[in-house]
């Protein structure tokens, strides 16, 4: 599947833009702050019917407008065309329109490094993004779990008695067990690809990534009954410390390079290589799972990639059925790809040259 004829209205600093997309490499050139990253975010929303991490409804609707809409024509594997649309209207009651099939998308951006360098939350986001695309029940389940943890924490702070508080703990246990199962399944799909790509980029160092269950010790516990027992076992301690100590909201990934924490000991270059391997692994997982290549989005990443890492990305872009959209500040040599250029000035897109 691929997208053509993109239309973006009232999205961030873009009033109304029409962009023809080709089924190959699309490059949007412009200075920072002129709307190319906004347009890429709009494309992500449209493709996955979901925002990239860290942004929500209130961030995306243009400041003086009551609604935003992104639409495109999606060309399916059978070569039929369907309209794909995502829109939000703010106001006293919020309305949302989603139309058309989901197109899995992989986003590469300068913030990718934080998957290795940042805190546990960034690594949870990494897993959650993929899990949400693979398993439609993941996102609603995670939202429910997060709300249950918030309710439980409030109850702990205010010394709520049993059994009223126990029922929220129980929901943390049941939703938590399923979130853990889905995260583990997601990581199991990703790991072989992460390791293979990492070996390709760095023959000398060995990478190991481990799932660390929040507040649990020893072997992984995924079975619902056992999860409940483990949560109950620490409920007294949670009551004393007045905060939830066990659950997927405390998960992390242990990333080790040659047996040392990559977050603390790896060089910036080594961290970049790991982050790139993790992102490219998503590409392979989506391709396997959906039996079609995902849409690839590269937000301002070429300036930071060295020759070897850049060459690897170019290999993916050159695949015959691959659709890629790149934002950059200047046109650059993209090897054997034949890109279509757009120039972006003040939120206006124009074919270039």
């Amino acid at each position, binding site marked *: 599947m691929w997208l053509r004829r993109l239309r973006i209205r009232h999205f961030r600093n873009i009033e109304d833009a029409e962009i023809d997309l080709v089924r190959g490499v699309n490059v949007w050139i412009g200075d920072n702050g002129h709307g190319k990253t906004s347009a890429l975010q709009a494309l992500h929303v449209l493709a996955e019917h979901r925002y990239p991490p860290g942004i929500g409804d209130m961030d995306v609707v243009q400041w003086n407008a009551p609604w935003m809409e992104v639409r495109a024509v999606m060309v399916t594997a059978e070569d039929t065309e369907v309209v794909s649309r995502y829109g939000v209207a703010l106001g006293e009651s919020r309305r949302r329109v989603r139309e058309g099939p989901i197109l899995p998308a992989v986003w590469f951006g300068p913030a990718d490094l934080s998957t290795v360098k940042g805190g546990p939350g960034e690594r949870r986001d990494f897993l959650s993004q993929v899990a949400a695309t693979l398993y439609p029940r993941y996102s609603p389940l995670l939202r429910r779990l997060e709300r*249950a943890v918030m309710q439980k924490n409030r109850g702990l702070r205010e010394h709520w008695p049993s059994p009223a*508080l126990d029922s929220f703990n129980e929901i943390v246990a049941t939703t938590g067990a399923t979130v853990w199962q889905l995260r583990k399944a997601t990581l199991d799909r990703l790991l072989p690809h992460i390791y293979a790509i990492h070996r390709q980029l760095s023959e000398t160092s060995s990478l190991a990534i481990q799932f660390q269950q929040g507040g649990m010790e020893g072997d992984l516990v995924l079975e619902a009954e056992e999860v409940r027992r483990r949560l109950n076992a620490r409920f007294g301690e949670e009551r004393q410390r007045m905060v939830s100590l066990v659950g997927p909201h405390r998960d992390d990934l242990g990333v080790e390079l040659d047996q040392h924490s990559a977050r603390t000991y790896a060089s910036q270059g080594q961290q970049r290589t790991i982050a790139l391997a993790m992102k490219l692994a998503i590409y392979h997982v989506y391709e396997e799972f959906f039996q079609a290549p995902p849409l690839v989005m590269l937000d301002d990443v070429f300036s930071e990639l060295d020759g070897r890492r850049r060459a690897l990305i170019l290999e993916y872009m050159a695949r015959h059925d691959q659709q890629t959209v790149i934002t950059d500040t200047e046109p650059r040599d993209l090897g054997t790809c034949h890109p279509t250029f757009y120039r972006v000035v003040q939120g206006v897109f124009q074919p270039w040259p």
Partner: protein
Amino acid sequence: MLYPAPIQDLVNELAKLPGVGPKTAQRLAFFLLNRPQGEAELLASAIVNARRRIRYCATCFNFTDQDPCVICKNPNRDSGLIMVVEYPKDVVAMEKTHEFRGRYHVLHGTISPMDGIGPDEIKTRELLARIKTGTVRELVVATGSSLEGEATALYLGRLIKPLGIRITRIARGLPMGGDLDYTDEVTLLKAFEGRQEL
């Protein structure tokens, strides 16, 4: 520009209604002012009357203008089968199926630490007292599928199971976050028939 005080008062009062923002409140106020005098008086007296004559049924805590309410008073309704719901609107939704022959208990909310609503802020103690009178055989918990609705159901399970009566939960066929009053009658009936032990 400021409106004359009577208009401003009306706008302010309307804006206190749930789901009504300042803009909608203005629109409603001007709508009322443009209608015949009699219509506005009918509305005003309907509000006053309802507020004056409606109270909780002392048994099931549904809204009623007579105590006990028509459902609690009806000898053909099974007093051994009680459906626990969040709000009076849920009773209306269930009654539309014309199939449920038991009686109700209205909690008027769900437990929620973030809103400062504990079991004592909703009608759970009253439910317990009602069960202890001894005629109740089965309790069907029909709180919503929201997190708080689910937590309230679990809470009631823990509270009531030791008393030795059957306690069931309507089936999870309802959509995520779905309320009884948004669910069509056929789905609602299936949810009731597919109820499971809590």
